[in-house]
């Protein structure tokens, strides 16, 4: 089987979209029960070309287009999983997973529990999410919070090319449903691919630091790292934690980091109110109470519908806004 990417040796750089494609290929090669379907994922290879060549190389039976109906896609995936398949479905854009919400919340998340484990659902739901690509309305939502608040689902999101590969392979191998949030803004970012990485549930410390901890995931990890660089110039030594997996949540790594630094800033694109950052800030505040030198700050999107391209720069967490938050961490008490 000659896959587009077989040419790409480990050493050369590939994009995050290519890493996802590679993970799908390797999983489909490793297990014939893995099938990929969704809107335009076949001949077209997906609107982001993430499934490029899969139909050509694995055939219509392994990667196919569906009618235009997200609940139908999700329900079909659930039925196929009940019969022993491992479907990987694509929601074309974040906001277009909403029609499938009932199938996700009432069935995908609950089937194992309702059947005492007799009907596990090894389904991976790929959701390109987030903004920063100048998308028109409904094309830049960050919907992770809805899934994070739904017990029975795993919610993971890569921030690096290698995590895109390793987390997706792990998600496909998981016997539980996994919502795989793909930061679409990073699809074209390139890096070398490392095909081994930590398991689902483990956060990664992307940068060691002693003064404060920046907690981010997916698209904002890069911003956090840039902010840490800039802060270094201003004399702050910041640690950056990339959650990688929101459910399960890596309390050990996050708590250890904040107890060490005594300060924390939580960063994500989704609206702040009721967002995932609220959970992170709440548990950090509770678990690190006696270690905290300052309140945990959140740098998030505003509590508004995702804004249009011309205004999204105001909405997205920026290096400046992160630095402002860091500056507000009551250093005077030092």
């Amino acid at each position, binding site marked *: 089987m000659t896959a587009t990417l077989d040419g790409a040796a480990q050493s050369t750089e590939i994009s995050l979209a290519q890493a996802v494609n590679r993970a799908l290929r390797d999983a489909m090669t490793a297990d014939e029960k893995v099938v990929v379907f969704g809107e335009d994922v076949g001949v077209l290879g997906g609107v982001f070309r993430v499934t490029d060549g899969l139909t050509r190389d694995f055939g219509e*039976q392994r990667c196919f287009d569906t009618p235009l109906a997200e609940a*139908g896609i999700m*329900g079909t995936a659930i*039925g196929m999983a009940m*019969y022993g398949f491992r479907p990987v479905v694509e929601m074309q854009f974040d906001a277009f997973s909403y029609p499938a919400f009932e199938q996700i919340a009432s069935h995908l998340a609950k089937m*194992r*529990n309702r*059947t005492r484990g007799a*009907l596990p659902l090894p389904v991976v739901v790929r959701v390109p999410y987030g903004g920063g690509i100048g998308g028109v309305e409904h094309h830049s939502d960050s919907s992770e919070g809805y899934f994070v608040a739904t017990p029975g689902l795993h919610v993971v999101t890569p921030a690096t090319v290698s995590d895109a590969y390793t987390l997706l392979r792990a998600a496909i191998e998981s016997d539980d449903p996994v919502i795989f949030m793909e930061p679409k803004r990073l699809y074209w970012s390139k890096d070398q691919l490392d095909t081994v990485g930590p398991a689902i549930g483990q956060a990664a410390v992307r940068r060691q630091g002693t003064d404060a901890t920046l907690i981010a995931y997916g698209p904002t990890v890069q911003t956090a790292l840039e902010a840490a660089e800039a802060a270094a110039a201003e004399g702050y030594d910041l640690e950056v934690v990339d959650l990688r997996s929101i459910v399960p949540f890596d309390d050990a790594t996050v708590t250890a980091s904040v107890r060490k630094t005594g300060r924390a800033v939580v960063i994500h694109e989704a609206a702040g109110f009721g967002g995932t950052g609220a959970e992170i800030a709440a548990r950090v505040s509770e678990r690190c109470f006696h270690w905290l030198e300052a309140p945990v700050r959140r740098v998030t999107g505003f509590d508004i519908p995702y804004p249009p391209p011309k205004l999204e720069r105001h909405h997205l967490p920026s290096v400046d806004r992160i630095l402002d938050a860091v500056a507000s961490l009551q250093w005077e008490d030092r």
Partner: protein
Amino acid sequence: MTVLATPDKTGSGFPLGFDAILDPSPLQYLDEHGALSGALRDDAPELDPKELLATWRAMVIGRRFDVQATTMVRQGRLAVYPSSYGQEACEIGAILALRPTDWFFPTYRDCVSMVTRGIDAVETLTLLRGDWHCGYDPQRWRTAPQCTPLATQAPHAAGLALAAKLAGDDTVALAFCGDGGTSEGDFHEALNFAAVYQAPVIFFVQNNQYAISVPLAKQTRAAALAHKAVGYGMAGVRVDGNDVIAVRRAVAEAAERARRGEGPTLIEAVTYRMQAHTNADDASRYREESEVDYWKVRDPLARLETYLKAAGLLTDDVVAEANQVAEELANDMRARLGEEPEVDHRDLFAHVYAEPTPQLLEQAAALQAELDAESEGAR
């Protein structure tokens, strides 16, 4: 190359053809008087006495189950019970037409069909009893957990059928659905997927005329629910849902079509919900007794019985045996549903994921500590 699809008006080349689908007179073999009404269809089936008696026996047992469940919900032994009294031709005819290897997707209404499938009566009632899981092993019985969110099981059936087709198995999936359920978007998406993929699935709509208090006339303007098949390019059949012979035949034919690779079928079975929606409902608020009377005389069990008696098939010992088995079932339900089901608080966390998350482990430990403290206090 895009050319406009151009079947002729009769839909020849279309599964079953438009005329058959659009014919509003339901397929019927036994009229309400229990007489063969082959008139309605010239191809009267050769009726196998053994099969007829087995069907009748299952209906006797199924009805007994339903009556007993209704009694026990009144006694507070079940949290809720949606009766299918009077719908036995559907509940039983459909199931008996399937193979054990076929998959079945019941709703909360379909306990009788599950018992007919062979699932233990108490296991069948686990959910309605207020336990936390479906009670039986779905894999063993090829029966999905009873589905409550309406029509959401329909796409599962389509997906499972597609999977079976891809796997090269000759498995067929059958999903039950109510008349009200046909209004949900998931019903539409399921039928469309099934048709596009020519999945071996049967969508069996029990049109019992009501969705809780909402009558069919407020649910759809279609002349018949079976007509919806036309819009998906699939076979559609309207059957007298109180005629078990017709139901069994319609499902068997649909299953054969599916196994032959000719895709899905939508079956509308015209029947009636004799009881209130559930024990918690008060049907007198929205329908006349006279309406119920109209359907009493169309009782599916009585109808078959009349025919079997006339045909001299219903011998005393056959009747005695069936009634005895039915009574034993009722006694068993009385005894076992009388006991409180055992529930274990640890099960709250055991099956949310293959491996509990660290967060769940913390929560399970906290609950355990609370309960230990309580029992400490108790001592």
